[in-house]
């Protein structure tokens, strides 16, 4: 709970307002806020708050200042924090900017070369669904089942979009009849997202059939009808250029190489991109109407509170991204958001 102190210079009068409790107490006290108001020779009355020092002088200059400058400053420096413990401690002080602070740090560690595991980074993202979504999009699992499960567990309000992106990648790998049948048989929290891309294989590429899990099959069949009516709405089969260092091995090649699942495609059509100085941009929602009965995405990041501050930090996306086979994050608890 933050307390606010306003000090009348002459009388050394401090007014301590316990904001959350809505109470106001007045007491005599020394001037705790002298450093806040640089008025030379003046006798300022300045409001202050008491916060734990971050240990970062640049930001601690704002520590006593009410408002969000202290948290914003911590978010701005988050990319340089050395380890997870530092992130948890420093970002934990960032108040409304905590989610963005965490995102800013994770954004700089998304590259597979960063030595930080998906599990670790997803834990650092914590409740910032945009952070998790961006991470899942940037470093997708080679295994579609793992990716879909991670989307469900960690992408929060963006889980439907994350599922769509995963299925789009899966489709672009080049799937065969067996793989279509296997995926169609899996239950999904977002059957219309899955069904859309299954239908793209079935109707647009004439590969496989919708038969499978009831909800997924229903969604697939409906979309097959839609594609049959309007074939021009079939998704593009053209892959965006792959990132350097990536392979385009699809399921067939992967199986031939003894590697299960899909090779990850970096450039999903309409998928992740780089914006404004290297920010990784998860793509817009995949085509198809928002599934009825499936959760719709809500506000963007930062929406842990009402109008939450801006996005996390962007870091340069290093060209050679090498995907390692994904593993199901068994050690992580399901996300609550």
């Amino acid at each position: 709970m933050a307390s606010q102190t306003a000090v009348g210079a002459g009388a050394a009068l401090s007014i301590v307002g316990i904001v959350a409790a809505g109470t106001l107490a007045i007491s005599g006290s020394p001037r705790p806020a002298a450093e806040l108001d640089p008025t030379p020779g003046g006798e300022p009355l300045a409001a202050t708050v008491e916060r734990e020092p971050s240990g970062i002088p640049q930001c601690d200059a704002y520590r006593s200042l009410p408002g969000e400058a202290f948290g914003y400053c911590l978010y701005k420096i988050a990319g340089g924090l050395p380890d997870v413990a530092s992130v948890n401690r420093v970002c934990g002080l960032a108040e409304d900017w905590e989610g963005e602070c965490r995102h800013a740090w994770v954004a700089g560690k998304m590259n597979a070369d960063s030595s930080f595991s998906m599990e670790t980074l997803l834990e650092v993202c914590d409740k910032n669904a945009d952070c998790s979504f961006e991470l899942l999009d940037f470093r997708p699992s080679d295994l579609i089942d793992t990716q879909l499960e991670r989307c469900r567990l960690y992408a929060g309000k963006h889980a439907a979009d994350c599922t769509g992106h995963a299925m789009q990648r899966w489709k672009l790998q080049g799937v065969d009849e067996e793989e279509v049948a296997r995926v169609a048989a899996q239950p999904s929290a977002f059957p219309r997202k899955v069904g859309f891309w299954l239908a793209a294989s079935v109707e647009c590429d004439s590969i496989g059939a919708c038969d499978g899990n009831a909800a997924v099959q229903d969604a697939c069949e409906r979309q097959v009808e839609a594609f049959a009516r309007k074939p021009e709405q079939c998704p593009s089969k053209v892959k965006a250029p792959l990132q350097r260092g990536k392979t385009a091995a699809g399921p067939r090649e992967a199986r031939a190489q003894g590697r299960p699942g899909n090779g990850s495609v970096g450039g999903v059509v309409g998928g992740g991109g780089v914006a404004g100085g290297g920010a990784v941009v998860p793509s817009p929602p995949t085509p198809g109407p928002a599934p009825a009965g499936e959760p719709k995405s809500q506000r963007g990041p930062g929406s842990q509170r009402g109008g939450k501050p801006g996005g996390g930090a962007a870091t340069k996306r290093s060209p050679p991204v090498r995907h390692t086979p994904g593993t199901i994050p068994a050690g992580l608890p399901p996300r609550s958001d």
Partner: protein
Amino acid sequence: MHATRSFCIATLALGLSGAVAVGCGQGGPASEAASTGCDAKAGMERDRCVHDEVRAIPGSQPDEVARNASRISDPMIRGAAVSGWVAEHVDELPVEKGQALCELLEGRDKSYCHRRLSSPHLQR
């Protein structure tokens, strides 16, 4: 656009909210057009006051945000004001207006501000 002021005004206002303001304006940039209670404050207190004014601007007035943000001397407080305002009003912002505001930011925050404007999943 900016005028350098050299004045000292002391006011004391102790309202129901417990807000107290006394200060000397001195040499900080200030909008000629805007003359608010914030100008009675100084330094970071003044910047914070303008920050709060910015955050209270309705989503339909992005130009007002840019104008007022320029009155904030401290880059951290200015960044928090602009970045937070864009995040809160991204749904209402015309793209070009939002981009102009993002350009007021620095570094990765600028990048993510633009990303926010261009990513549909962040606008719902």
